[in-house]
């Protein structure tokens, strides 16, 4: 009986130590206030720009402002990418603004090609780009505390 108890205790101790060791190796950057602010302020700036994109020939009138926005978005991506153990956040920024298939550059590419986007596309693309930023904001918030994030609940 005593032997069984000792074996069980040893197993328990080993399990606890193993769990601690595994958890100690989990790579996750801490919550970053700057990253959070980058995402919230650039969300507002990007959505304001999206709202202009259905006006006739609006790309020509806003080309310089679009370039400026892209520079600011790239800076936010570089910031996230430069933080150690921040792989998930950096990849999400890349999906949002990385190449021509990214959400923001895809919208700009359509805007540039047609001079403006269809009015019916505006609410849809606005909702998607806002959700892209919300996902980045939610990821950052979850580094601090577990949350499903109100902004990521059903949109309709």
């Amino acid at each position, binding site marked *: 009986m005593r032997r069984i*108890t*000792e074996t069980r*205790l040893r197993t*328990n*101790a080993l*399990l*606890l130590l193993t*769990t*601690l060791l*595994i*958890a*100690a190796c*989990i*790579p*996750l950057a801490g919550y970053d206030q700057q990253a959070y602010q980058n995402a919230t302020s650039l969300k507002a700036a990007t959505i304001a720009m999206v709202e202009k994109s259905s006006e006739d020939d609006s790309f020509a009138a806003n080309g310089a402002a679009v370039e400026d926005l892209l520079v600011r978005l790239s800076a936010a991506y570089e910031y996230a990418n430069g933080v150690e153990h921040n792989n*998930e*956040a950096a*990849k*999400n920024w890349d*999906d*949002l603004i990385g190449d021509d*298939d*990214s*959400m923001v550059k*895809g*919208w700009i590419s*359509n805007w540039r*090609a*047609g001079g403006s*986007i*269809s*009015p*019916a*596309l505006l609410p*849809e*693309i606005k909702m*998607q*780009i806002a*959700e*892209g930023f919300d*996902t*980045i904001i*939610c*990821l950052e918030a*979850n*580094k601090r*505390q*577990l*949350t*499903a*994030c109100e902004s*990521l*609940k*059903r*949109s*309709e």
Partner: protein
Amino acid sequence: MSKFDDYLDAVMTDAKVLLSSTIKEGKKEAKAILEAHVENSKERLERWTRLLAHGDIKKREFELLINNQITLGRMRLRTVEVIGKRAALDFRNSLRALFIDKAFDIFL
């Protein structure tokens, strides 16, 4: 049983409760994030198909929306990955505190 045995037993009992509650919490958040995406996608796809059929959006705009929706799913999955890591780290931190608290209770 020695005091050390009592200590390990007490830690293990509380650790099991802690693990169960941490996993439950992380699972709840992850499920909410992914289920919302599936529901959103269904409704959006129906709406976009109607817009395309009525000529309200162009084909390349429709493709952009579909591509973005797939991207959003990928982004949400990464957020869920972070939830998993956060839950594991929370468990580690609570377990550390448990080791110390129980030692104070039993040995001092």
